[in-house]
């Protein structure tokens, strides 16, 4: 892959392809994927009252002036205004038309000629060749007719074809820029500028020059350019693009802000925590840029077809002209050949896939979902099976108290003693237990002399009495006995895959706390939404079977494969691939990276900010599992759009080509139709903008699974004491 592939068009953010149009405008160099984008960009930047942009517009305006005049004089010719007495005028009118047409053809045709030449010396034949050959033939014949006193000239055809193609490409480019609108925030990271505060002075600087420790000011409505710490000011920020969080997040002095989020309602002074190019936003930007600059499989196929089509059409045009020349006057036959060339210009086909893909990618990006490979949306639309990882994907990934078994003490007492001694520990399980106690309003006993026993637990004393919480080994080490009834219940808890923490005081084990991971609130709804779309769902986990079965039961997955090593997961994916075709794997992207890479589509949830380690093709934002069905919908819509686009482009071409070849299509009409087909493809793609937004799981009516883990944030569910207590 050459370096050129990574360049995106300055106007529409689509890849520029093999041959970029490069222009230096107002001191900055820009690359454009096509002539249309070049015009549209300069029209847009014409607002800056800069000379560079005006020059192109002047040329286009003069070209339009000339060709409109040619058209009007030709109209007079066609309405036989110069017959009879005025017939002497005819050669002079022709000469006048030639004088008007020559500069018009030069002005309007030069970009096409240049494109043809640049591609030609690299051995490519592109659609501009068709235009140049067609227009050149019409102009050449007419010039010959002017000086050879022939009866007809076709300067109007030559110039109007150029005009229509130019206008068509401009309109197309305007539509394409709309497609890139959603992507803009993701592509703007390094190109933007930041207001750097240096003592008293405030200077605008490119983001890439911002370094750690610099002070940056952001005004309401601006995008925060750097990761950093708020020094001064208060504002709510919109972090949707980076974290997927759709609600505004309030930031004030001391809060961290993320580059790429929008400062909504107040100015902020931010101390940068790293270089402007090292932010997550910049990483995301590079990743999206890279994804867009590569071509998906459909696009590669379309490109290949277009590559073959152009020489074929050239031959067809020549054949049509030769065939009709036997029965019709030469100029009429030439016009038919010209119509064939113009109408078969395969511009729309080249646009079909990238346009729809970039709209889809932008649509997803607006909600914090990142697509990192161009063809992946098409693949996702074909996926027959979704394999899920368990921990951290379908579950919260943090422990939660699910049961209290006790012997000779009340459950509240057990929790109070456990929380008292464990409140000094940073361990996951310890935090879950103290949080559970707090959630139930239990005041922890005050423990003193607390110290950790590495790998075993914690011990301390309350009113001089020893207290300990930890593993069974800790209890055995202390010589505290475990009542057989409690031991029995604990064994069944462990059988379910729960982790158990023993609590004891006064030389006895008094209770056992069972902890487990819990399913995410949205997991069940997500799984049923996927199944509702006719997709198969399977759980692939490295955890033990009992835990896997418990979670799969709660979220509604029937097909469970537990205790799998990473290799076994890959093997399982292979097996499923044979049964269901394309397989998508959903994981948290941290410990299942290789498996995500192994699947046809790797989807990582919750780690958009850890892109560097990702192997996933699609990254959903933290807590964004619920968006998965919507992502699948978008992918299906993108695939459908690409197909309809291609059908349009090729179908339209074939029908118009046949009409032109049998001589039913005027070249000017053919050019209008052709420009229309590209615009149709753009319009058809823009329908993707109307896809509904993802609907977050409703907060009002939680399903049972939702209830159980509604306290996800603190790692504990606020269950009723009856549900936990067993004793």
């Amino acid at each position, binding site marked *: 892959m050459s370096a050129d592939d990574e360049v995106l068009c300055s106007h529409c953010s689509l890849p520029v392809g093999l041959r970029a149009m490069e222009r230096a405008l107002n001191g900055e160099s820009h690359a454009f994927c096509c002539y249309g984008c070049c015009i549209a960009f300069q*029209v847009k930047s014409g*607002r800056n009252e800069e000379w560079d*942009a005006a*020059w192109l517009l002047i040329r286009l*305006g003069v070209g*339009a002036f000339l060709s*409109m005049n040619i058209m*009007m004089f030709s*109209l007079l010719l066609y*309405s036989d205004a110069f017959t009879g007495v005025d017939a002497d005028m005819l050669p002079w009118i022709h000469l006048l038309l030639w004088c008007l047409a020559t500069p018009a053809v030069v002005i309007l045709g030069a970009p096409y000629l240049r494109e043809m030449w640049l591609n030609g010396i690299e051995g490519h034949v592109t659609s501009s060749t068709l235009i140049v050959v067609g227009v050149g033939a019409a102009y050449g014949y007419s010039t010959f007719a002017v000086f050879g006193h022939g009866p007809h000239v076709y300067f109007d055809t030559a110039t109007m074809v150029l005009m229509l193609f130019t206008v068509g490409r401009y309109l197309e480019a305007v539509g394409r820029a709309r497609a890139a609108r959603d992507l803009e925030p993701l592509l703007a990271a390094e190109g933007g500028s930041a207001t750097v505060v240096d003592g008293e002075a405030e200077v605008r600087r490119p983001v890439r020059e911002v370094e750690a420790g610099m002070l940056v000011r952001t005004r309401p409505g601006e995008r925060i350019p750097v990761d950093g710490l708020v020094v001064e000011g208060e504002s709510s920020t919109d972090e949707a693009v980076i974290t997927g969080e759709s609600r505004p997040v309030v930031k004030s002095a001391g809060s961290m802000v993320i580059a790429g989020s929008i400062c909504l309602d107040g100015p902020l002074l931010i101390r940068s925590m790293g270089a402007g190019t090292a932010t997550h936003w910049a990483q995301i930007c590079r990743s999206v840029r890279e994804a867009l600059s590569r071509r998906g499989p459909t696009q590669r196929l379309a490109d290949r077809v277009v590559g073959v089509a152009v020489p074929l059409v050239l031959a067809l045009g020549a054949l049509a002209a030769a065939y009709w020349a036997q029965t019709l006057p030469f100029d009429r036959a030439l016009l038919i050949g010209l119509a064939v060339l113009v109408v078969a210009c395969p511009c729309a086909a080249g646009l079909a896939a990238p346009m729809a893909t970039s709209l889809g990618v932008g649509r997803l990006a607006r909600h914090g979902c990142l697509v990192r490979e161009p063809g992946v949306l098409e693949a996702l639309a074909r996926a027959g099976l979704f394999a899920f990882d368990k921990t951290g994907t379908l579950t919260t990934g943090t422990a939660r108290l699910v049961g209290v078994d006790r012997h000779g003490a009340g459950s509240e007492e057990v929790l109070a003693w456990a929380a008292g001694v464990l409140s000094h520990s940073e361990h996951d399980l310890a935090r879950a237990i103290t949080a559970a106690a707090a959630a139930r309003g239990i005041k922890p006993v005050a423990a003193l002399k607390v110290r950790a026993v590495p790998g075993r637990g914690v011990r301390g004393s309350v009113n001089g009495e020893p207290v300990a919480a930890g593993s069974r080994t800790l209890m055995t080490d202390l010589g505290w006995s475990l009542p057989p009834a409690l031991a029995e219940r604990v064994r069944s808890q462990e059988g379910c895959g729960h982790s158990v923490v023993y609590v004891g005081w006064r030389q006895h084990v008094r209770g056992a706390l069972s902890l487990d991971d819990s399913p995410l609130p949205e997991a069940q709804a997500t799984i049923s939404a996927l199944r509702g779309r006719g997709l198969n769902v399977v759980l692939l986990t490295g955890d033990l079977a009992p835990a896997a079965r418990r979670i799969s039961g709660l979220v509604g997955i029937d097909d469970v494969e537990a205790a799998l090593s990473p290799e076994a997961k890959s093997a399982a994916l292979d097996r499923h691939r044979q049964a269901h075709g394309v397989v998508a794997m959903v994981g948290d992207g941290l410990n299942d990276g290789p498996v995500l890479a192994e699947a046809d589509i790797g989807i990582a949830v919750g780690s958009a900010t850890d892109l560097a380690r990702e192997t996933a093709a699609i990254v959903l934002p933290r807590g964004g599992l619920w968006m998965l069905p919507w992502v699948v919908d978008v992918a299906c819509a993108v695939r459908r759009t690409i197909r309809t686009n291609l059908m349009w482009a090729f179908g339209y071409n074939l029908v118009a080509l046949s009409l032109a070849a049998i001589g039913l299509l005027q070249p000017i009409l053919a050019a209008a139709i052709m420009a229309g087909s590209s615009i149709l493809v753009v319009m058809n793609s823009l329908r993707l903008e109307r896809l509904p937004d993802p609907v977050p799981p409703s907060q009002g009516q939680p399903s049972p699974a939702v209830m159980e883990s509604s306290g996800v944030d603190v790692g504990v569910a606020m269950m009723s004491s009856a549900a936990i207590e067993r004793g």
Partner: protein
Amino acid sequence: MTHYLVIFAAGFAGSFHCIGMCGGFACALGRDARGAGATMRRHLLYNTGRLTTYCFLGGLAGALGQVICTAQGVGTAPLLNGSVDVGQRLLAIVAGLLMIAMALQFFGLLQTFHRLSVGFGGSTLAMSLRSLLTARSPAAPLAFGVFNGFLPCPLVYAFIAQAAATAGALPGLLVMAAFGLGTFPAMLMMGGVGRAVAPVWRQRGVWLAGCGILLLGLITFGRGIFPSHAHIGHAWMPGFPA
């Protein structure tokens, strides 16, 4: 010929409306430092560009009208004698209604329609074209005029509807040419002299333009409704192939 004179007059009256939007451009185009001759050339170029676009659009609309009429004629001619007329009458009715709607706008009525007709992103295009106004090239005013002609404007729409109703490329072109020439004096005055017309006069001009368009619209509409005796429209343009 009278027909075109009426349109010229309507264009002249309507140009007081032009002062609102296009007059601003003309002022911005301003005077050339090289003297009155150069200033005159600038503004003539600008207006020529505008006129060309108008004529082109008129020719296009006329041709479209012709296509509609012919298609209608081909489709029904074998069945109904003189049915070529049906298409033209239909066209006249539609064009007449459009013109009446545009005229009502000038009296401050039908504001939604106004937003619809002006809200085609015209202002964005106008903004973008600003670079042309300050460009030094002698061709810049011409280019600007050409683009200016495409900017959405109810006045232009009204006359394009009229041009379409003529159902011929050449008469359509001539309608727009007459209209465009009608707007010349006011626009040249705005640019060359750079003196603002008193708002009272502007308002009167706009009303006058509204009346003119309303009248034309009613006549066009009437031509579609009463084909047998109201041949005023046809009487106006003898000798032109329709």
